[in-house]
């Protein structure tokens, strides 16, 4: 009720959809905290090579595994490597995989959904049938299969995860496009003789952007979870590279003696997933109030 009233109020002042969405988002403390945390983690990851307290390969075998101290805020692992440094470098990979694989999923999903929704008819039926079939495939198993068969490299990981996550995006975009293409501004663009691909790229996709952004924000944590899951099984990121999933895997092996090696990487991953999920929920309420859960 309240937000609807405000919507009309700001509309009269002539604020844009985005301005209005921002007003709604900024009322959501949890989402704002999520946004802040996400920006913080991204900033730290970006700056890691310059601000990490120790070198990535730096060992201190004499020290060995030590609990958190003033020298090593999160302690050290069995080789005496600073855990904070390892988590910062691991976060780079985890976040990188999250964003890149989501981008892959976005590109495939948006193109597929937009084309199917815009062309409609038999093409649409066929393209959506493909999505239905792929939906029913056991993907976790397929990703494991891909990683086993073609070796464990990070490019394949992007491809495999991206190839899984585009399906829902395609459905969402198609639904949006179907409702948009009947509207007057699209028809007038068509009447003006604009080619189809220009209409799709210039007029339809930007108007479907709200749900796309919302879903993309919710896809990133899924992707990161998938990467961590694979790395935990030893099928994802390979040493000497590191990710949070891999650090958790190492932490589990020695958790009885050195629990901090499990707790801190776990905290980093959970906090990030938490932040992204709250941000995604907040964005959904702000940008696309009709599809929100409540």
């Amino acid at each position, binding site marked *: 009720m309240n937000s609807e009233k405000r919507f009309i109020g700001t509309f009269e002042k002539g604020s844009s959809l985005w301005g209005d969405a921002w007003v709604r988002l900024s009322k959501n403390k949890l989402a704002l905290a999520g946004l802040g945390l996400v920006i913080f983690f991204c900033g730290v990851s970006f700056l890691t090579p310059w601000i990490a307290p120790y070198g990535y390969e730096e060992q201190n075998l004499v020290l060995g595994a030590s609990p958190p101290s003033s020298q090593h805020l999160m302690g050290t692992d069995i080789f005496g490597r600073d855990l904070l440094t390892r988590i910062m470098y691991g976060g780079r990979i985890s976040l990188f995989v999250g964003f890149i694989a989501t981008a892959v999923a976005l590109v495939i999903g948006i193109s597929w959904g937009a084309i199917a929704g815009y062309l409609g008819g038999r093409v649409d039926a066929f393209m959506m049938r493909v999505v*239905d079939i792929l939906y*029913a495939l*056991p993907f*976790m198993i*397929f990703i494991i299969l891909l990683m086993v*068969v073609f070796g464990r490299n990070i490019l394949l990981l992007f491809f495999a995860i991206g190839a899984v996550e585009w399906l829902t995006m395609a459905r969402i975009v198609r639904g949006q496009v179907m409702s948009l293409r009947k509207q007057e501004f699209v028809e007038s663009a068509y009447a003006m003789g604009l080619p189809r691909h220009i209409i799709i790229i210039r007029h339809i996709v930007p108007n479907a952007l709200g749900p796309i952004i919302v879903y993309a924000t919710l896809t990133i944590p899924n992707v990161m979870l998938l990467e961590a899951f694979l790395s935990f099984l030893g099928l994802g990121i390979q040493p000497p590279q590191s990710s949070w999933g891999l650090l958790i895997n190492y932490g589990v092996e020695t*958790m009885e003696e050195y629990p901090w090696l499990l707790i801190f990487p*776990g905290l980093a991953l959970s906090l990030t997933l938490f932040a992204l999920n709250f941000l995604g929920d907040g964005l959904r309420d702000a940008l696309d109030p009709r599809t929100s859960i409540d």
Partner: protein
Amino acid sequence: MLRFALGRILQAIPVLLAVITITFLLVHSAPGGPFSADKAVPPEVLIALEAQYKLDLPLWQQYSGYLGDVLRGDFGPSFKYPGRTVNELIATGFPVTAELGIYAMLVAISIGVIAGVLAAVRPNSIQDYVPMSLAMIGICMPSFLLGPLLVLFFGIYLEWLPISGWNNMPGDKILPAITLGTGYAAYVARLTRGGMIEVLSQDYIRTARAKGLPEFLIVFKHGLRGGLIPVVAFLGPAFAGMLGGSFVVETIFDIPGLGRFYVQAAFNRDYTMILGTTVFFAGLIIIFNIISDILAMWMNPRLQSKTHGPEK
């Protein structure tokens, strides 16, 4: 209704064929043969091995042969466990995985539905915020983190529960079931809340209230049937997710289930095992998706008038 069920079953056939074909092609396009990892195999032995597993035939013959075998329910011999068939390995591992999955599902549904109903009855109160925040934690805490933390706390520090094994000690099934079920409990809670809030605002609920029915009956007798539809529709995908999750849980708790076999097969490059288990899992997931779709349809009379499934 019957037409819907039949349609869903017919739709499953191309899906299953696609699974078999894609898996088969993937496994056979792997660089290096399945025996190339074994050092110094004499060429004549290699030829004999390849003949034994029919790897010397052209690909399409291998494919049609495999398809025929699978249709007869025969997944062939295992590459890495000589003398054992994939069927035997599945028969050993699957009952364990299924038992784990059932317990985890019980955890997910009981906790999830109770939390979701509590939240929906008084939205935007403490009774809503606390379970929903816990649900968010449940979603953000992956099983491979939750499991070890539970082991650390309840197994090692408190020494209340055994930390690994299956059927060895009383109580050794509790931690795996909770580990696997918690994430889904969280999803179920969110779906229940959403579904119940919508249902409780309907006219027939108001009628029930006007009749003076006790709130308990309104919520559980009239509300739950409609409110649980999203949950029921989620059970199919949840089951698929649990199979994946069981890989991790079985690894953490050292449970001799199919998920652990699968991961081992993946590391050993046991191609027939990978192929067989993938097809088996896919078949199961497809069956569960159909069941959960049909159940959701049966619970929602409004959908039954349409010939097509929900959300096309």
